[in-house]
Structures are given as structure tokens and as C-alpha cells.
């Protein structure tokens, strides 16, 4: 039962990523990210309770607080300040993107199928989901123009890594997890500042304009 | 043979003085023979001695632009030539200071003399001095490989580069002459012509500065300075001839201090030097002086001969 719950949450995360791909409104994308992080926290809490890993509880709660609440709030504020609320036409249009994401999901799952037996537990499912999320996150970064979307994609990748750490391994040392969490916070703060700068300079969040800076 | 330091010192001094005293005679001899070739009477046989004496009596004139290098040049040149005399075997089958060094040291001393003179020649600021120095160093540079190869051939076939030992072993081996030795001797003869400043490399009797090599270097010297240079040049020439004679014709060389052996050796040496001088005169009288930029070709011939000699001997 726990097993299924975890898989459900992981699947939910993947769905949220797909929805992010199809989204044009930035606010919705940010909220989707929040949901995704919540699901990740749920996985962590469940596993922590059932596998008696107390420090997992700590990190999961931290995840919920930071990534499901604080970061989305921060990003929403950035959008508010900057005044841009919609993603413009990406390099690859939405239907095509979705198809490509399906392909990337296949690639991600291919690795997980190679792993030892389903009797292991959630491991190979989780790995499959996580790898797909990584690839789709990267894909988002490549094809979307707005900086906010790219930040969200980066955070998605980070979530995926965290998922693997929680679900498929016996977890990382507490110190490492805390460190990573704070790194993420910091990264988002910095990126937020950068967004401001980009908008100041180019009056747009379109990062393809950055190539104007090349000498 | 002789091992006590005193004996060596006496031997060296005697040999050096002998070379010093006889070198001008060689010059006179060559001039006399050249004149005979030209059906002239020519100067007296002992004229070079008178010339040296005359020069010593005149006051040296030095340029105001010159520094101590100008004065040091002839003296170092003279010293190097005299030091070289102690390294060649002359009457005896050993050289006084043969343990100081062999072929390489001898060549080095001659190079030292040339270096000193060339450096000093540039000291007056006269363009002729520079020209002479430049040409002399060029000819010297080109002659050196040929000289080395010829000497190496002689040395390697006897198994030693030590001049005294070389003569001893060649003398022991007898009078069989390998064709490679002829080639080496020919190469060495050409180098002798270059070092002594003889036709076809250089005309010792020319008055035209632009045709001079050695003479242009010493154009500015007078009095005792010039006397030293002239004397040293004559000594160098005699050293070269003695070397040639000792390396390739060690017949009659004395192997002991017995008076008859020494007398025979002296006679033999005189005969050999005479023969070589005759050869030089022949070459001088039948050839014209080469244009300067043809001299490298002559040196190349010498180099080729030297290499052929080495190749023939050992391959």
C-alpha cells in the first residue's frame, strides 16, 4: 500500500512536469512546481515513517516548507515586480514539445528497466520517473525563452535528484541534504536577482537576447 | 722520456728558442726560392732578421682610439705561437710539453692567437682592420674542420692524439705510406697555406689593402708590436711545417739523446722543411691568388680531402 502511495506521488510529479511543459501562464507554472514539491515531500514523509528514517522526516518537512511554500512565493513576487506573466512562443511549439517529452520519458525509463528486480521496491519506478524529469527539465531549459521558466526547470531537475536520493537509496547524510537545500535557496535568490538584471538590460526576460552580450 | 721538471723546462725552453731563432730563416728561404723561380736574385737569406731588428729599433705608433687590447693583441699572439712550439715534436720523437695536451690543444692555441689578433685589429676604428679581422675569422672558421679531420685521421690511425706519442708510433710502424695519409697531408697542406697567409689564399707581399687578409689585420702595427706579429707568424708557419713533417714523414726522428741520432734527426728535419718550403714556393709561383669568395671553395676541397682520408682509412 505504501508502495503504491509512493508510486502515485512520483507519477504525480511527472504529470506536473508535463503540465508545466504545456503551460504558458507563468503563475500556473510556479504553482505546479509548488504542487510537485509537495508531492516530493509526501514521498519523503511516507518513506521516513515506514522505513524508520527520522532524518528523512526532517528533510521532507524542510522540502515542503522551502520548496512548496517559500520558493514559489518568492518567484511569484519576482514576476509581480517585473510584470511579465506569460511565456512567449517557445522554440519548439507545445504539441511537438509534448511528443518529445514522451520520447525523453522512454529514454529515462530505459535505464530503470536495466536495474535489478521489481521486488526491490519502489527503486526502479522512482529512478525512471526521476530520470525522465531530469531530461524533460533540461529540455524545458533548452526550448523556453523566459528566465523564470528556466529557473523552474532547474528546480525540477533538482527535485528529481532528490527523489532518487530519497526513494532509491538509503538517503544521503543529513548534512549533505541540508547543504543541498540551502544551496537551492541561494541559487533561486541569485537567479531572481539575475532576472531583474536581465529585464533591466533587455526589457524582456527572453534569455536568447543574452547572445547580444557576446563580443 | 725525460721526466724531471727541470729537464722538461730546459727542453721546452730550448725548443722554443730554437723555433724562434730559425723561423725568420724559413721566411728568408721561401722568399729566396720564390725569387729564384722568378729568375731574380731576391733579398738576402738573412734579411728577415735585419727586418726584425729594424722594427725593434723604431718607435711604435699607436692610434688614439685604441685601448689596451690593441697593445695586448700582438703579445698574446706571440705568446700563443711560442707556447705552441713546445707541443710539437721536432728533433726528438717527443714534444717537451706533450703532457699538457695534444692535437686539440695545439689547434686551440692557434685559435687563441687568431682571436687575439682579430680582436685587436678592430681596435683602431680603421675599416681595413675590421675587414682583415672579418676575413681572417672566416677563413679560419672554414679551415678548422678540415684541419681537425686531417689531424684526426693521423691521430686515429696511430691510436693517439698526443703528438709525441703519435710520432713515436708512426716512426715505429715504418715507412709504409697509406694513401689516406697522402690525402690527409694534402688537406693539411692546404690549411697550412691558409694559416700562413700564402697564395692562393692570401698574398703576403701585396700592397693593395682590399686584397689583404692577414696583412690588413696588422696594418696599423709598427715598431716592436709589428716585430712581435711578424715573428709570431713566422714561428706559426714553422710549427705547421714541423707538424706536417712529424705526422706524415717521421723518418729519421731521434728516439734517444745520442749525438748521432740528434744530428741525423736535425739533418732530416732540415731536409723535410726544405722540401715543404719548396712545395709552398711551387704552389705560390704557379697559382694566382684566389678571389676572397673563392677561398671557401678551396677550404671545401680541403675538407673533402680530410673526410676522404678518414673514410679511406677506416671504412
Amino acid at each position, binding site marked *: 500500500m505504501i508502495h503504491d502511495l509512493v508510486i502515485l506521488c512520483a507519477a504525480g510529479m511527472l504529470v506536473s512536469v508535463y503540465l508545466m511543459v504545456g503551460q504558458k501562464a507563468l503563475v500556473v507554472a510556479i504553482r505546479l512546481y509548488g504542487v510537485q514539491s509537495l508531492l516530493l515531500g509526501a514521498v519523503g514523509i511516507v518513506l521516513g515513517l515506514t522505513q524508520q528514517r527520522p532524518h528523512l522526516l526532517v528533510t521532507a518537512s524542510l522540502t515542503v516548507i522551502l520548496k512548496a511554500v517559500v520558493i514559489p512565493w518568492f518567484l511569484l513576487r519576482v514576476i509581480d515586480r517585473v510584470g511579465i506573466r506569460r511565456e512567449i512562443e517557445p522554440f519548439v511549439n507545445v504539441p511537438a514539445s509534448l511528443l518529445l517529452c514522451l520520447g525523453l520519458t522512454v529514454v529515462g525509463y530505459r535505464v530503470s528497466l536495466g536495474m535489478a528486480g521489481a521486488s526491490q521496491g519502489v527503486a526502479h519506478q522512482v529512478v525512471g520517473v526521476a530520470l525522465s524529469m531530469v531530461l524533460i527539465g533540461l529540455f524545458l531549459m533548452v526550448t523556453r525563452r523566459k528566465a523564470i521558466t528556466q529557473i523552474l526547470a532547474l528546480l525540477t531537475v533538482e527535485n528529481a535528484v532528490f527523489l532518487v536520493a530519497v526513494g532509491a537509496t538509503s538517503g544521503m547524510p543529513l548534512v549533505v541534504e541540508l547543504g543541498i537545500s540551502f544551496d537551492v535557496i541561494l541559487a533561486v535568490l541569485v537567479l531572481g536577482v539575475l532576472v531583474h538584471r536581465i529585464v533591466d538590460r533587455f526589457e524582456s526576460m527572453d534569455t536568447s537576447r543574452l547572445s547580444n552580450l557576446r563580443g | 722520456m725525460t721526466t724531471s721538471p727541470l729537464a722538461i723546462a730546459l727542453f721546452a725552453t730550448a725548443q722554443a728558442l730554437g723555433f724562434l731563432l730559425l723561423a725568420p730563416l724559413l721566411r728568408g728561404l721561401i722568399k729566396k726560392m720564390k725569387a729564384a723561380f722568378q729568375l731574380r736574385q731576391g733579398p738576402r737569406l738573412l734579411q728577415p732578421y735585419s727586418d726584425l731588428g729594424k722594427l725593434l729599433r723604431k718607435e711604435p705608433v699607436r692610434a688614439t682610439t685604441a685601448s689596451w687590447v690593441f697593445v695586448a693583441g700582438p703579445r698574446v699572439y706571440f705568446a*700563443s705561437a711560442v707556447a705552441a712550439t713546445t707541443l710539437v715534436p721536432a728533433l726528438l720523437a717527443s714534444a717537451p710539453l706533450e703532457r699538457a695536451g695534444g692535437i686539440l690543444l695545439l689547434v686551440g692555441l692557434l685559435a687563441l692567437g687568431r682571436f687575439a689578433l682579430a680582436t685587436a685589429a678592430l681596435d683602431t676604428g680603421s675599416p681595413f682592420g675590421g675587414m682583415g679581422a*672579418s676575413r681572417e*675569422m672566416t677563413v679560419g672558421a672554414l679551415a678548422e674542420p678540415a684541419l681537425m679531420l686531417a689531424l684526426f685521421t693521423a691521430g686515429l690511425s696511430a691510436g693517439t692524439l698526443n703528438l709525441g*706519442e703519435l710520432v713515436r708510433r708512426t716512426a715505429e710502424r715504418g715507412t709504409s705510406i697509406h694513401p689516406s695519409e697522402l690525402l690527409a697531408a694534402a688537406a693539411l697542406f692546404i690549411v697550412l697555406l691558409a694559416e700562413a697567409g700564402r697564395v692562393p689564399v692570401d698574398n703576403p707581399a701585396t700592397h693593395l689593402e682590399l686584397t689583404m687578409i692577414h696583412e690588413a689585420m696588422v696594418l696599423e702595427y709598427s715598431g716592436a708590436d709589428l716585430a712581435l706579429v711578424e715573428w709570431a707568424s713566422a714561428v706559426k708557419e714553422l710549427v705547421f711545417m714541423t707538424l706536417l713533417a712529424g705526422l706524415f714523414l717521421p723518418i729519421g726522428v731521434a728516439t734517444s739523446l745520442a749525438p748521432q741520432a740528434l744530428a741525423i734527426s736535425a739533418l732530416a728535419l732540415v731536409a723535410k722543411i726544405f722540401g715543404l718550403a719548396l712545395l709552398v714556393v711551387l704552389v705560390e709561383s704557379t697559382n694566382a691568388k684566389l678571389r676572397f669568395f673563392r677561398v671557401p671553395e678551396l677550404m671545401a676541397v680541403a675538407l673533402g680531402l680530410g673526410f676522404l682520408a678518414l673514410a679511406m682509412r677506416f671504412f
Partner: protein
Amino acid sequence: MSESLFPLGLALHATGVALALVLRRHPAACRSAAFLASLCGSTASFAVAASVLASGRSIRGVLFANAAAGSSVGYTVDPLSAWFLMTLAVLAAPLALYSVGYLAHAIPPGRTAFVGMAWNVLLLSLETVFAADGVLGFLVAWELMSLATAALVTTDHESRPSRRSAFLYLAMSHLGTGCLVAGFFLLAKGAGSLAFADLLAGAAAPGALRGLVFVLFLVGFGVKAGVVPLHVWLPEAHPAAPSNVSALMSGGLINAGLYGLVRVGAGGLGRPDPAWGMGVLLLGSVSAVLGVLYALGENDLKRLLAFSTIENGGIALMAFGAGMMGLAAGRPGTAALGFVAGLYHVLNHAAFKGLLFMGAGGVVASTGTRKIEQLGGLAHRMPRTAALFLLGSAAIAGLPLTNGFASEWLVFQALLRGFFSAERLTRIVLPLGGALLALTSALAAACFVKAFSLTFLARPRSRAAAEAAESPALLLAPQAFLAAACVALGLVPGLVVSVLAGVVAALPGMGPRADLARGLAGVSIGVPAFDQLSPLLLVPAALLALGLAAAISLVAARDRRLTPAWGCGGELTAEAEYTATAFAKPLVMVFRDIYRPTREVSTVETTPYFASEVRYRSEIDAPFERHVYGPATRAVLAAAGRLRVIQAGSLHAYLAYVLVFGVVLLWWLGGLP
């Protein structure tokens, strides 16, 4: 006690760096402190070297150890390292003293700290290179050495040629280091360890790779040693640096390359192939001849000295090549002779090149120019510098009674000795090498007649030369020291050879040899004696002969008359003097196939009858730059230009690269069991 001397030396150099940094706002104090520390460091290093050479036992120790990483950087001062350390110390100690005086006027005061720091870093890293006993320590020190040198070359970074030469130096240096890393990697793979004791003890390289490894090391060390064709950086970099640095580079940095070659070639990779020895001999001969030929064609005093460094490096290589051929043929006597000759030449070169560069530095500092065509008449204005430079010139020309003659004599012996081998090729190559060495030696004499006479003698060719002042005593004393060393090393070759016999006996594959008999002063080759050299025996003869000359001139007419030089009726001015170009012209003409000189003559006429001005321009071809490095550089730049397309400057493009790579990788991983 002597165990800790080596780290002490390094620490002293490090102190010099620190002091230079701390005192950077007080140039005079900074200079004195930094170079005094350098002097002390060199002295400590000399003491270590002397103790190792005297006792014959190596000194080992550890510099850094990191237990967690399991790695340590240690040092082993064995006799070979000690020899090179001693050579470095003999050069660096007087140079430190010289630098204090020289840098007072040669560089802007603000840069003193920089030079002081970089100098000490360079010496520190050089000493570590000579004593390192593991790949890690060696490579780090090697890189540090290159960087410190490049930094010093750009001391005058306002000038574009200076920057360009530093860049060229760095590029070539990294080419060499890359080859070294590859070579060490191949060796380490086979031996499974990074310590020199395992890698260079003769057994590490597997058969097929041995040749490749040797070539890699040859290129890597050859770049540093200035072997033709890897020498192109040398004539640019050495003159660009301040003269004290040039002296250290020519006399010390080259040795790093030569040290590596000896380590590798003298049994480090096992018994050398005959082809290796012959290759080294050939490269050495070419370097020697080309080096001296290009030196002859130079009118820039420091570039002339730089090319002469290439020549002397070539001579040392010829000796090492003969030694390697001896090892390959199984004749340890010949091998020992070759290496002894080469190592002796290394020491001698440091001594006379240091002296010459110091003198040149003094001249440049006094007159402000390096061009020989603008100098002249300095023997009157700078008599002591002139005398010392003359001695250095005589030494480098290999004239008897100087150290140059002693080592060249030994190199000749090494070349001729190999003549007694049975192989035909050896018997042709070695005497040919001897002939080339003779040519080199004679050309070097011509070159230094030019360098000395045209710089110091006759009339000054420019106002700067006419108003030059003699260098202060602080600059002259170190030169006098090195000059004395040149004479001393030339008069007692037996002593030096005794020390070197011990050094060479410690190399892998050799043992103590009785072929080289030596008394205190003299050297004798072969039993029964093939040749001997005892300069001390000649000294009394030479002195007496000089005395005789002096006596003759005293007995002769006493009055001397001083008049202006005869100018064919007119007054001789500085324009009538022979120029440097003119002096070298006959040799340039003779060797024109090598020089390929170009010549442009244009006349500017005002009337049809008289040309008022003639312009003459002559240039010597630089074949390596034109035919080898030029096309290679262009090809690399063209390829880079084409690859530039990847660098679109677009964030998305870069991310796309990551994505594609990730997908491919994951697909491939998925396919694995």
C-alpha cells in the same frame, strides 16, 4: 644536519617571496631583502650539493605529505641532482648580488616586488625540479618554473614584443609539458607507481612503447633546452627579460631540460637504442651549428647571446648523444666520457653565459641600447666591464686555459672515442660530429670577436655609447667572480672530472670506470693514453712566453707615439668603422644557403649624376618560423575558427548540448546490462 639543508634552501626562497611582498612599497629595501634571501637560498642549495658530491651518498626527504590522500611530495638529491643544483647555485648566487644593483635602474621601481617574488619562485621551482623524486612534485615544480619565467619575461609588459615573446614561450612550454605528461603517464601505467625510483630506474617502459616514450621526453625536455627545431621561443624570450633574468634563463633554465634528458637517456628507460643516441647527437649538432650561425647574423647583443645558448645546449647534447651511443653499444667507458663531457659543459656554460649576460646588462643599462651597431668605444668608458666580457668571450669561444676549452676538449674526446666501436654507422657519424664541433667552435670564436670588438672597441657609434658610464662595483663583483670561476674551471679539469666521474657512476647502467684517469689537474683518456690535457703545465710556458714578448718590447725602442688612426688623408669618424653586419657578411655569404639573406638596395637621387642617399636593407631568413611554425599556427587557427561555430553565445544552444549529451548517455547506459 645536511638533511634539512635542502628544505631550508627552499624555505629561504619562500621567505624571499614573502619579504618582497611585504616590502613592496619600498623598492630599495624590497630589492635587498628579496635577493639577499635568494643568495642565502642558493648558498644552502650549494652546500647540499657539495655534501652529496663529496660523500657520494644521496640525501632524501619529504616536502609535503598528505596522509588522507595518501600522496606525498619528496625530494632525493642524488649526485646528478647535486651537480645541477651546484651549477644553479654557482650562477644564481652572483646573479642575486648583481640583481640588487642592476634592478635599481633597469626596471620601474613599482615592479621591483614583482621581480623579486617571481625570481625566488623560479629558483625555488628549479631546485625542486632538480631534486624531485616523484612525478607529481616534478610536474608541479616544472609548471611553476615555466609560469615564473613567463612572468619575468613580461616584466616590461608595455612593450608588445615582450608580451608576444612571453606568449610564444608559454605556448611552446606547454607543448613540451604536454609531451612530458604523456610520457610520464605511459611510464606510470606500466610501472604502476609515480615515484622516479620506480619509473626511471631502467625497467619501467614496455618494449614497444619505449621509443614513443623516449621521443615524448625528448620533445618535452628539448623545448626547454632549446633544441632545434623547438628553439623558436628562446631568441625571443631571453632578450625580452631583464638581463639578470636572461642570465638565469640561459644558464639555469636550459639545464632543467638537459637534466631531464640525462635522467631519461642515461639508462632511465633501460639501455638506449642506438637510434636514440644518434638522434640526440644529430639534433645536438644541428642545434650547435645553426645556433652559432644565427648568432653570427645577429646585431642585437642579447639575441646574439640567446642564439649562443642554443649552440652550447647543442654541444652538451652532442656529448650526451655520444654517451648514449656508448651505452647502447655496451661500452660504459665511452658512455661515461660522453656524460662527463656534457655535464662539465653545462657547468661551464652557466659560468660564462652568466658572465656575458651580466656584462651585456651593464652595457644596456649604461647606454640604453642593445644594438651593437650603436655601441662601440666602451673599452675606454667601461674598462672593467670590457675586460670581464673579453674573458667571457674567450671562454665561450673555447680558447685554451679557459673552461670552455676544457669541456670542448672532453666532448671531442667523447666523439672520437666512439670511433673505436665496430659499427659502421657509428664510425661515420662520430667523426662527422667532430668536424661539426670544430666548425661550431671556430664560428663561435668569430661570433664573439664580433660581439666583443664591435661593442667595446674603436669609436662610439652613438651619443649614448659616447657618454656611457662604468657599472658600479655591485655589478662588477659578481662578474669578476664568474670570470675567476671560468679560469679556475679551465685550469683544473682533473678535479672537475673526478667529481663528475662519481656523478656519472651513480647513473643507472654505469659503474665506476677506470678509463678516465685523472690527477688533480690533468685528465687522461684511455689506457694506454689516447690523449691528455693538463692546462696547468702550459701556464708557465704561456707566462714565460708573454714575459718574453714584454721583454722584447721593453728592450726595443721605448718611446711610443700616439696619433689618430690613419684615414687615407682624411679624418676617420665612427661612420668609417667596420659595422657588425659587415663583419659577419663574408660568413653570411659563405653560408647563404642556410641564411637565405634577402637584400634590398634603393637609391634616392636628386640629380641624374649623384645619388644623395642609398638605402640598404638586408635580412636573414627565419626558416623555422616561416616553414614550420607559421603554417602550423595558421592551420590550428583555421581549425579553431571553424570550431568556433559551436560557441554560438546562446544560452539555449549550450543547454541543448547538455541535453543531447544527457540523452545519448542515458540511452547508452540503458543498453548496458
